[in-house]
């Protein structure tokens, strides 16, 4: 809700200012917006369906079962792979991480899950590649994954 208010107020202010200054440039902005939208539409649809599939298959219960039965190193790796692949809204992800922590998962495992979740986006990769190129996307996500594992290890040492 706050997001929508922020974006639409920005749009309102921007549009009024733009229309006052130049009508032609405003029309041009709309044309650019439409072209950019058409360009991203296929990747957006792909992302939408992949998010639906991953969340439909990997429910919080399934993740708990997967991460919960394993312990130590295997659990951490499993958690980081699940985190890297899925795109879970924070209102679901953090309560899930909290309950995993209380039911006995280690800090390292939970950090690996949370950090890969927010730093690596496999489901958003098609869109990222389209907008920013293959090389940038692979580097950003690949290095992000390695960094997430290192962060998880450090957090395990500091916080336990």
């Amino acid at each position, binding site marked *: 809700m706050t997001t929508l208010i922020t974006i639409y107020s920005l749009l309102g202010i921007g549009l009024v200012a733009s229309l006052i200054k130049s009508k032609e440039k405003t029309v041009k902005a709309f044309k650019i917006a439409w072209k950019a939208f058409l360009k991203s539409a296929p990747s957006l649809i792909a992302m939408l369906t992949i998010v639906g599939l991953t969340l439909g298959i990997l429910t919080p219960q399934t993740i708990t079962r997967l991460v919960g039965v394993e312990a130590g190193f295997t659990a951490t790796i499993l958690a980081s792979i699940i985190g890297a692949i899925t795109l879970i809204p924070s209102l679901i992800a953090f309560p899930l991480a909290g309950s995993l922590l209380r039911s006995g998962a280690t800090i390292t495992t939970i950090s690996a899950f949370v950090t890969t979740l927010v730093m690596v986006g496999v489901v958003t990769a098609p869109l990222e590649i389209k*907008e*920013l*190129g293959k090389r940038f996307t692979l580097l950003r996500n690949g290095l992000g994954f390695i960094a997430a594992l290192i962060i998880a290890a450090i957090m395990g040492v500091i916080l336990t």
Partner: protein
Amino acid sequence: MKTLKKYVLLIVIMLVFLVLIITTPDAAVRSSLVMWDYFKEMALILPPVFILMGLMEVWIPKNQIQKWMGNKSGIKGMAIALALGTLPTGPLYVAFPMTSTLIRKGASYTNMVIFLGSWAALKIPQLMVEIKFLGLPFTITRFVLTLTALILIGLLIELILKKYPDKQWLDKEVIEKAVKS
């Protein structure tokens, strides 16, 4: 071959969905519900975002972005990228087209990695939820470590892309620019 490649992803998705309908109809229903939710969200958020991008493209001069977030912007550029990323401005898929516009206007790769990273990992509303469920020490430690990692990754990607530029992507951008003007 090129058109085939375009549809491979879509065909794979359809197949997975089909298998899901047959094997676990429950999961198929859940998936459809999630897709519908995301579709509604995107239908509300994306139109204003694309129009704002169009306005940015038309009104913000290139040297301005270059001065704020370009190669020579230093710590100030990083701070701007971090501040813009942490604002409550919506889901990550909004950030990719914006980043593309900013790069074309002269923002550095380092700052864009920080921008995207803080958008995804250090967003203020998200941090609030994190504090509530995982505690303040966890959240602060993750914040500091993640920010450090983002800066290092950003600098590294800048170095790599300077040495081995993504020619395929750059060429495509140049062509699109030529078509636009």
